[in-house]
């Protein structure tokens, strides 16, 4: 294990001057290859696309949280000059409930289709009902207002607790709770029950000397990417479609859009734009099928861009939820049992990340007797989308709050209590996996040694710590490494770059090829230029797509060795690869040939040189553990919280580009701080979203935060050639607990509800 304190630049230059880990390029901090375009305004994001003859789309959205659509009348809109096409749910194929992909996070195309455009019923404020395309955005927006929709308004149900009641209004009359034996015959809002168990926690709990138990609640929050969803679609007379869109997966857009529009995959080409933030929220589709259908009906390319209000009302968010947690411990701090019950709001269609909450909540701890029960509940809110470590932050918030309370009860330092019980190599998690070498304990140890943790606190100040876990995944990735005529290199993948992954791809290719990183150009290709890749998500790209790049670079090396063997007239096995050159073994009189030398004569040795790799990485994605420390000061007069210090410590495997790894830790921490202190969806009692903009859905701004220190704990992952471990999601798991514990310790009372607004904190202080 090595440690990198993220406050300095660790002495690594920007040009591959070598690192402490023995690599030449991996672990250095070059300027990202797509950087100049992004600091000069040249980079094209979703809304920056412009096509010949392009017209503009606008969506009609439900003003009601729950209603039957009786009639849609387009007459007035169609009379408006400049209107070229209108569509409603009737223009799309009707899918069946059986149209789905199974899995831990199952994907229902039946639900997705009805979420993208409502059929007979609207299920949340902002649900798309119809769309119109016109020659200007202003005409399209005007026409959208002229489309008359007749509703039969139904009673909405907004929280999991209300939706689970016997007589609650039903969102779907064909929803029968999964995971209950036998399956109920009566429809309800409870989509699924998930139970995970190890040992017998009820019996084990009886041996506890101390038990802490509590209820915690959180609200719906949004990913808050700054770029609203945007796309453009072209539909040619031969039925071929091109879609330009910003998303976390061009192949994802192709597959889902084809499914929802009843088209074959080969008819749709998706060209990825730069993506202006996703955090999981752009792992699904909203506008693309609408733009495609409008383009088909109008015969013109159609561009669609959401407003911020539309983003808030109809995309994302992640589930609000409640947790009941119970932990028992011996006097010496040894945990004996833990139980957790989670109720998550899925939004209008099933599929909250509650199962993932159940799997992750207790993962940092070595518990032989543990149980987690989860309820997935539909409510009249937008369908939850993935948000960075989906499901884990809320579960961790409850468990880490309880751990803090337990540390107080036992009089033990909260990090020492966590170390005493930390999951380590060989620990079996509640979801059945036995951990390999993990950095959980290393992070806790590193946290205790930080200057931050040993800084004294002043009056009205409090310190909180919390741990967090995320699985990380592998998946299907493809890469092609192309050697240009001058020996420079193009690395093409199908993985959209949402945070600097092009830099990581270039560094790994440089390391394998022995070519300077400045001579490598990584790019994100469209769906017809590289083979299929899964979307960017699950913290998988640097790990799995990185592995594909490494394999493809090795394939290219093989090709280049073959060329050298041909030139030297020796056997292939007489050629080795060293420092970016082919060398002839056992004959040092033959001058090595560099990549540029081999590239120059490629025509004479067989044509262009490239390497490729198409892989599916099914194991070896090392799980991520992190520990965060937060110091706050609470103003006892106003209840306002100021974050004084913040440190994120995480096992990141090998940091390929440490600056972007630190950036992941800092960004995740900031989102978690927002979740803990400011952010929440506020609904009227009729179910209308009241805070649809950044003014009153307040994400952290620069003046809200201190510098966020990072400690990169590097426990290389044995499942990757360079030891890469996914890093993007773990950092949002601990902050909710860390901030809540800090505030609770500052005021001397346990905060059990997020966000910890000044009003809530004052109420707690005043409660005596």
């Amino acid at each position, binding site marked *: 294990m090595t440690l990198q304190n993220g406050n300095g630049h660790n002495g690594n230059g920007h040009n591959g001057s070598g690192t402490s880990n023995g690599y030449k390029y991996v672990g250095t901090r070059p300027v990202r290859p797509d950087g100049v375009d992004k600091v000069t305004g040249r980079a094209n994001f979703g809304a920056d696309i412009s096509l010949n003859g392009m017209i503009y789309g606008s969506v009609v959205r439900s003003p009601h949280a729950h209603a039957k659509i009786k009639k849609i009348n387009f007459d007035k809109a169609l009379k408006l000059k400049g209107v070229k096409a209108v569509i409603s749910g009737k223009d799309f194929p009707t899918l069946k409930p059986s149209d789905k992909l199974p899995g831990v996070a199952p994907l229902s195309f039946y639900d997705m289709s009805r979420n993208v455009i409502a059929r007979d019923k609207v299920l949340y404020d902002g649900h798309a009902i119809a769309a119109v395309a016109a020659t200007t955005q202003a005409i399209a927006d005007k026409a959208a207002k002229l489309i008359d929709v007749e509703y039969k308004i139904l009673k909405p149900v907004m929280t999991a607790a209300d939706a689970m009641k016997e007589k609650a209004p039903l969102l779907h009359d064909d929803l029968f709770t999964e995971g209950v034996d036998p399956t109920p015959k009566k429809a309800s809002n409870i989509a699924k029950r998930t139970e995970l168990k190890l040992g017998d926690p009820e019996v084990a709990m009886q041996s506890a000397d101390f038990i802490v138990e509590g209820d915690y609640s959180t609200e719906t929050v949004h990913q808050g990417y700054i770029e609203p969803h945007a796309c453009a679609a072209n539909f040619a007379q031969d039925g071929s479609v091109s879609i330009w869109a910003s998303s976390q997966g061009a192949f994802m857009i192709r597959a889902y859009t084809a499914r929802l529009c009843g088209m074959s995959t080969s008819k749709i080409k998706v060209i990825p734009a730069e993506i202006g933030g996703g955090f999981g929220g752009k792992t699904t589709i909203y506008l693309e099928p609408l733009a495609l259908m409008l383009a088909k009906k109008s015969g013109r390319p159609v561009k669609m861009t959401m407003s911020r209000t539309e983003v808030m009302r109809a995309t994302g968010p992640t589930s609000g939820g409640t947790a009941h947690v119970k932990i028992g411990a011996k006097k010496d701090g040894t945990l004996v049992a833990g139980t957790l019950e989670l109720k998550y709001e899925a939004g209008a269609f099933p599929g909250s990340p509650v199962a993932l909450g159940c799997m992750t909540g207790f993962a940092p701890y070595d518990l032989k007797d543990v149980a987690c029960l989860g309820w997935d509940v539909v409510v009249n809110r937008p369908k939850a989308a993935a948000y960075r470590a989906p499901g884990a932050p809320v579960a961790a918030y409850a468990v880490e709050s309880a751990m803090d309370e337990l540390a107080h009860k036992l009089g033990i330092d909260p990090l020492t209590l966590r170390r005493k019980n930390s999951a380590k190599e060989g620990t079996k998690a509640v979801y059945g996996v036995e951990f390999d070498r993990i950095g959980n304990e290393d992070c806790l140890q590193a946290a205790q040694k930080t200057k931050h943790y040993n800084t004294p606190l002043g009056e009205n100040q409090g310190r909180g710590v919390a741990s967090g876990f995320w699985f990380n995944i592998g998946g299907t990735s493809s890469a092609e490494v192309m050697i240009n005529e001058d020996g420079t290199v193009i690395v093409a993948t199908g993985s959209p770059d949402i945070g600097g992954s092009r830099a990581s791809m270039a560094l790994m290719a440089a390391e394998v090829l022995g070519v300077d990183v400045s001579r490598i150009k990584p790019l994100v290709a469209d769906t017809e230029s590289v083979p299929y890749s899964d979307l960017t998500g699950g913290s998988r790209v640097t790990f799995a797509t990185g592995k594909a790049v490494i394999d493809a670079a090795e394939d290219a090396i093989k090709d280049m060795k073959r060329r050298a063997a041909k030139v030297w007239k020796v056997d292939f096995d007489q050629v080795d690869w060293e420092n970016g050159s082919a060398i002839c073994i056992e004959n040092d009189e033959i001058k090595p040939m560099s990549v540029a030398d081999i590239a120059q004569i490629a025509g004479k040795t067989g044509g262009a040189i490239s390497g490729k790799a198409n892989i599916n990485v099914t194991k070896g994605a090392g799980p991520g553990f992190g520990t965060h420390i937060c110091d706050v000061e609470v103003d006892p007069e106003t209840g306002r919280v100021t974050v004084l210090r913040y440190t994120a410590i995480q096992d990141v495997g090998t940091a390929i580009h440490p600056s972007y790894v630190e*950036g992941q830790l800092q*960004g995740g921490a900031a989102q978690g701080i927002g979740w803990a202190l400011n952010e929440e969806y506020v609904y009227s009692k009729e179910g209308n979203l009241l805070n649809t903009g950044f003014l009153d859905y307040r994400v952290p701004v620069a003046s809200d935060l201190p510098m966020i220190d990072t400690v990169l704990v590097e426990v290389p992952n044995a499942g990757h050639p360079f030891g890469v471990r996914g890093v993007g999601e773990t950092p949002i798991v601990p902050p909710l607990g860390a901030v809540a514990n800090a505030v609770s310790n500052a005021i001397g009372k346990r905060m059990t509800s997020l966000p910890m607004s000044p009003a809530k904190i004052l109420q707690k202080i005043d409660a005596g």
Partner: protein
Amino acid sequence: MSKQHVTMTVNGDPVEVLCRADQTLLDCLRDEMGLTGTKEGCSTGDCGACSVTVDGRLVCACLMLGVEAEGRKIETIEGIGESEELHPVQRHFLEEAALQCGICTPGFIVAAKNLLEKNPNPTEEEVRYWLAGNLCRCTGYDKIIKAVLKAAEEMRG
């Protein structure tokens, strides 16, 4: 709706444009002039992605009408580092890895450059408050603040 003829200076060049009376400066820049480096994140002045300067003053282009730009000098991201060299703020953004997705970056660079023109030696707190109108969801601001402070240091010489 009829369009109005508006004359303004954009990044030093004279520009004539026809815009609707209800069209924002942001839409004029993006849709009428093809200057898409200025981004729209909210259209309500809350995110700062559309930051430009008008006669040297930092504004959200989404909160100003195109017709109000008549006779004004507008500077956008496309006008910064127009020569072969990047502006120090741009260079330090790259060197400090102060961007992840990059959608907020043009706005931050316009705002930070404007700060340093007014205050060449800002404290960390002054940078944080000046940039409080620019939202970034990726970085937690840490590296952005460091980049601006380093650019300030370099520009002071």
